[in-house]
């Protein structure tokens, strides 16, 4: 067996902690509703996140209806358009992607992958989900209040967010939005602390930090980021609530609204932007890092090859996470902040491109000399590489302050961030669902439907967002429900917009195929067995599929190796599970 430099552990260490007795549910309610089992909570989180995500999908279709075919639909006014845009953005970033990656995949995979029976704090875990659920209810309720939800844009910039010129600004819309965010953050903090403690404290014997699958590294680091970043947003939401309800002036300078002198004075709108993006930029990586981790494991497993440069991958995740806290104001190059900030933030932003690029190289070098099975999860991973690379490279435009000036606030930005933190992570989410569905249900998803789903989603998304960059280059601003008369916008832009909308509808409809596959395969899918992908990580080595209460059998698995022992020379199979002492055990017996 080849020597793995970073995987030297002479003997298995003794157990640090005694096994703790789990909470054993006795009836339907405690088992499936107020469950304390991370796997059930994961499914609850995922179910709610995907449901609210479907609302966001419908909203995006409404946005595209308006952009592709302006003035054809009377029910889409500027007011409703801004409400659709705002709710679509907020739902996708926070209530879908953050909740799904951390609450969904985190809950399911962390305990199983590190060889633990459950999360460290199962009761807090349950509370975390229910507070998240409450946050979603408050958010959805804002669709039904007089005046409707807020239309302030997902960035909620004051002063307009709480004034009458913006939908929901003087109604309940903005209040419910801010309350919902605050609830989300409280719920997330409970879950997040839990994930971090679990990874640090509950790993099975032999599972060193440098033997963690990259999925766990990604989710773990993203959780740390979220725990540090979300408080900034919490502060901002509370202060804005005060400004709105108590007429404080944290973010409100003296201003004249439609001829009326308002009682505000002395506050700073830019302060809000700093707080928002101090959260908002790490948020990009809160979504991206779990995707990085998961896609690494998918590529390695389905290419039957060890991930290339594991240590580099870990340090890149940690490095990107750390750097993500000092780049936030690249979202504010045209905000009017001191221009010298531009030098600092452009430099840090472009530096972050280096570890990010290394990750891309390492995924591709993992394919090199592999034995690539073009399964649905692998296809989605390849789709991720294309879209993430595309979005990462356009990030070099927008991160470089002087290039951002002409492109800022145009459709180029919309195309960029959809490619890099919309399409790319969602392709990973879909690939991951195809990959882990057999473990969660014991049945395979239909492969042929999966391939069709992939091709329509991937090619369709590319056709939506690649040409959109060029609409931005023309100079078309974002957040315009219609372009109106402007000499610099040729008529052909409207044609391209219609084309993009048709591509968007196709991608939207293709998701029905996916939902059909999910529900149909619950009963009719091929039985998967315990380890259909012949993967190495511990979740595939459970005695039951789906794993029972407590995850593993009477004995916790012991970890003898890193998670990427695929195609090890001399081994009888093309994979060696982490709990396999193997022909030449690194760890020695327990």
């Amino acid at each position, binding site marked *: 067996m080849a020597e793995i430099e970073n995987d030297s552990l002479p003997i298995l260490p003794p157990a640090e902690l005694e096994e703790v007795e789990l909470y054993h549910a006795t009836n339907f309610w405690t088992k499936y509703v107020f469950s304390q089992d991370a796997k059930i909570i994961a499914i609850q989180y995922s179910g709610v996140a995907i449901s609210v995500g479907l609302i966001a999908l419908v909203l995006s279709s409404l946005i595209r209806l308006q952009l592709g075919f302006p003035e054809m639909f009377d029910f889409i006014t500027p007011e409703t358009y*801004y409400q659709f845009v705002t709710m679509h953005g907020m739902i996708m970033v926070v209530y879908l992607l953050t909740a799904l990656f951390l609450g969904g995949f985190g809950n399911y995979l962390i305990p199983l992958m590190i060889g633990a029976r459950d999360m460290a704090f199962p009761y807090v875990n349950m509370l975390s989900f229910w507070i998240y659920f409450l946050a979603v209810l408050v958010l959805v309720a804002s669709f039904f209040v007089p005046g409707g939800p807020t239309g302030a844009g997902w960035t909620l910039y004051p*002063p*307009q967010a709480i004034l009458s*010129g*913006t939908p929901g600004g003087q109604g309940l819309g903005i209040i419910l939005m801010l309350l919902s965010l605050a609830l989300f953050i409280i719920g997330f903090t409970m879950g997040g602390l839990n994930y971090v403690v679990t990874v640090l404290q509950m790993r099975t014997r032999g599972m060193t930090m440098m033997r963690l699958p990259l999925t766990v590294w990604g989710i773990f680091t993203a959780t740390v980021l979220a725990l540090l970043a979300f408080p900034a947003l919490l502060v901002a939401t509370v202060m804005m609530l005060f400004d709105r309800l108590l007429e404080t002036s944290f973010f409100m*300078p*003296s201003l*004249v*609204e439609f*001829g009326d*002198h308002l009682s505000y*004075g002395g*506050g700073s*709108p*830019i302060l809000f932007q700093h707080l928002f993006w101090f959260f908002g930029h790490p948020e990009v990586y809160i979504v991206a890092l779990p995707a990085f981790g998961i896609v690494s494991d998918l590529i390695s497993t389905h*290419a039957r090859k*060890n991930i*290339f*440069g594991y240590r*580099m991958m870990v340090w890149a995740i940690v490095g990107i996470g750390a750097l993500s806290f000092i780049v936030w104001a690249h979202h504010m190059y*045209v*905000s*009017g902040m001191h221009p010298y900030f531009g030098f600092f933030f*452009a430099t840090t932003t*472009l530096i972050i491109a*280096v570890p990010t690029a290394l990750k891309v*190289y390492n995924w*591709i070098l993992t*394919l*090199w*000399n*592999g*034995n*690539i099975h*073009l399964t649905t999860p692998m296809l989605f991973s*390849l789709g991720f*590489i*294309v879209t993430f690379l595309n979005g990462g*490279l356009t990030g*070099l435009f927008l991160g*470089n*302050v*002087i290039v951002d*000036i*002409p*492109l800022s*606030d*145009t459709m180029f930005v919309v195309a960029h961030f959809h490619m890099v933190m919309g399409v790319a992570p969602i392709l990973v989410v879909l690939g991951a669902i195809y990959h882990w569905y057999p473990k969660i249900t014991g049945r395979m998803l239909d492969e042929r439907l999966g391939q069709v789903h992939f091709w329509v989603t991937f090619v369709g998304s590319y056709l939506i967002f690649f*040409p959109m960059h*060029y609409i931005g*280059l*023309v100079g078309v*601003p974002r*957040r315009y429900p219609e*372009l109106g008369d402007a*000499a*610099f916008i*040729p008529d052909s832009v409207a044609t391209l917009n219609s084309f993009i909308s048709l591509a968007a509808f196709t991608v939207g409809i293709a998701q029905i195929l996916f939902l059909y596959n999910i529900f149909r395969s619950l009963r009719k899918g091929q039985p998967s067995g315990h380890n259909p992908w012949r993967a190495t990580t511990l979740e595939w080595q459970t005695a039951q599929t789906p794993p029972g209460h407590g995850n593993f059998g009477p004995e916790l698995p012991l970890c003898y190796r890193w998670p990427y022992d695929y*195609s090890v020379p001399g081994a009888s199979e*093309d994979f060696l599970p982490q709990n396999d002492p193997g022909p030449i055990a690194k760890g020695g017996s327990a």
Partner: protein
Amino acid sequence: MGTALVLVILVIGSVVFHVFSPWWWTPIATNWVFMDNMISLTFWITGFVYVVILLFVAYCVYKFRYREGRVAAYEPENNKLETWLTIVTSVGVAALLAPGLFVWFQFVTVPEDATEVEVVGQQWGWSFRLPGADGKLGTADNRLISDDNILGINPEDPYGQDDIVIDGDDLHLAVGQPVKMLLRSIDVLHNFYVPEFRAKMDMVPGMITYYWMEPTRVGTYDVLCAELCGTGHAYMRGTVLIDTDEDYALWISEQTTFAEMSTDKKIELTNLGDP
């Protein structure tokens, strides 16, 4: 095979689209041609990386696709390769950053001879103010805004009396004369956006933001708002003209000053007050 082929088609299609796309930036009307050059440079570098990497992926997908009996290589790390990739990437990034920061320095350094022009945004329209004969703008404050003083110009400030106020009309600028655009908002965030100028900046109530440029091409240009400012955001339009020196001189001679406006108002009010 099919997957690799689709990747190759995607790369070729993207390049062809880029080259033949009719959608490109508007002809520039200011000195910021550097910005266009930086975008071009960034397109060259990132485009090269994009094509090379994706073609390499397509090659791997084709060459190393699953075959019965194929055994994948086992190579956890390769320090030399990883070091080289780090260096090459860093050089590429520096090649973008260095000229970018150089141009940024020019952008944030306003030349001494730039004349000041104030742009004021409010839901949902534009007003403008020029410094008048003394070359200086008077101070202004949102708290001073009234029906008679729509921009909140300080009536006590002598510099403000000869300021030219343009409300509901087009802004004119003289070609070749560097201008410092002082940006002010009286309600929410706006952004004074003329695509042909390339430069843009938010307008923030409570503070004065700015950028500078030198108009280089005579013509008429659309003004749009580029920072979401409520339901009228997309309809907040205006027009700015870049004039020859003669046209500009003629136009400016027809404008009214703040002092004249106040007197006009007073006369109007007096007339109204007459029985």
